[in-house]
């Protein structure tokens, strides 16, 4: 199997958007992205179930504390933006998004770019998540204030905004993670074998920061979109 995004062996070229694919009924499936998503999802579910089974009141594990801190931060954001009582289900929704994106991004720190790239480096996952987010936001807005929701589309800018929201949300995440993958391939390509491990390791460490940061940004923007949709004052753009 050759690299997914890199063809550095011959000619020293870097190919972006190259995936290990299968064709199903005439449609193309990015197999590496699907597998990587399943791996990240399995990690999330596995850790979640592990925490849930050992959830302790008096002596929480470090992982449980990490889960609880994440949950508390999301609850705080939801409370600040729209109020938990307004839509309490937003909290577990954003919690699942945060964990899935975080562990998908963290797959970038593994030296497995060739056969298991981070799934967030594929627009299929980022567009999929932003699509689900915007559907949930629109559904919530229509359910609570249907007249106001449709009324604010009288402004054409509002239509553009509603279109650009999911695109910017997904492409921001996709671009950041993909750039990390490209940087790794560039480092491998440009540095000699005896030296490349230095910037390679440094960038892998930086990828951790990118992974956390992008997960936080995506989650907070998701909550903000919910807050805008449920705001008492209609935003007339």
């Amino acid at each position, binding site marked *: 199997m*050759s690299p997914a995004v890199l063809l550095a062996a011959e000619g020293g070229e870097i*190919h*972006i*958007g*190259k*995936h*290990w*694919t*299968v*064709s*199903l*009924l*005439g*449609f*193309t*499936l*990015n*197999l590496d*992205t*699907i597998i990587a*998503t*399943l791996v990240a*999802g399995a990690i*999330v*579910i596995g850790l*979640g*179930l592990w*925490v*849930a*089974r050992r*959830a*302790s*009141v*008096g002596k*929480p594990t470090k992982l*449980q504390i990490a*889960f*609880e801190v994440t*949950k*508390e931060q999301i609850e705080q954001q939801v409370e600040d933006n729209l109020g938990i009582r307004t839509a309490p289900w937003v909290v*577990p*929704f954003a*919690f*699942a*998004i945060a*964990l*899935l994106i975080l562990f998908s991004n963290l797959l970038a720190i593994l030296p497995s770019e060739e056969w298991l790239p981070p*799934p967030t480096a*594929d*627009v*299929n*996952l980022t*567009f*999929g*998540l932003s*699509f*689900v987010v915007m559907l949930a936001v629109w559904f919530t807005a229509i359910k609570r204030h249907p007249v106001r929701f449709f009324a604010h589309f009288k402004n054409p800018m509002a239509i553009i905004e509603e279109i650009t929201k999911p695109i910017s949300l997904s*492409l921001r995440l996709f671009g950041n993670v993909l750039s990390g993958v490209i940087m790794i391939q560039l480092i491998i390509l440009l540095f000699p074998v005896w030296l490349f491990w230095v910037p390679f390791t440094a960038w892998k460490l930086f990828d951790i920061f990118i992974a956390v940061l992008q997960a936080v940004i995506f989650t907070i923007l998701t909550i903000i979109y919910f807050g805008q949709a449920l705001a008492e004052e209609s935003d007339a753009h």
Partner: protein
Amino acid sequence: MTVLAQEQEGGGNFLLPNLTIVIEVLAFLLILYVLRRWVWPPLSKAMNDRQAMVRRQAAESTEATRRLRQAEERFDSALAEARREAATIRDEARADAKRIREEMRVAADAEVERIRQRGEEQLARQREQVTRQLRAELGGLAVQLAERIIGQSLADDGLRRATVDRFLADLDQVPGEPRKAGAAGGAS
């Protein structure tokens, strides 16, 4: 159904999604369901229980502090009361001791006075008795002595008694002798 493994050389635009997006959405919904169904409840329960425990411990701490303060106030109050009571008892004891000492002193003085009076009375009685005895014996002895001296018998009782009485009267006149017995004898 045709399944064909291949490498996609970016033939299409990699910024456009393909059918993979459906799989990704389904995978996310599955993850969301599992987390919501089996992870979220115990995690929330643990956090809520911990918050309840913290609130309970805080309340218990406040209650314990309040009880401690009350106990200290009761202790201080009891201590002050005990000190007041001790002072009262001490004062009463001092007053009782003073009163008892005074009573004992008065009783002792009375006893001393009584004993002294009894002694004086006893001495007086003994003196009177001795005087009576001496009066009887001394009269006879004096007569005998006088008879020897003057060489005659004092047969006359009346004369003899007058002589003795006069002698005794003279004896009573001796300085430093009590007058009571002599006066009594002299007057007769």
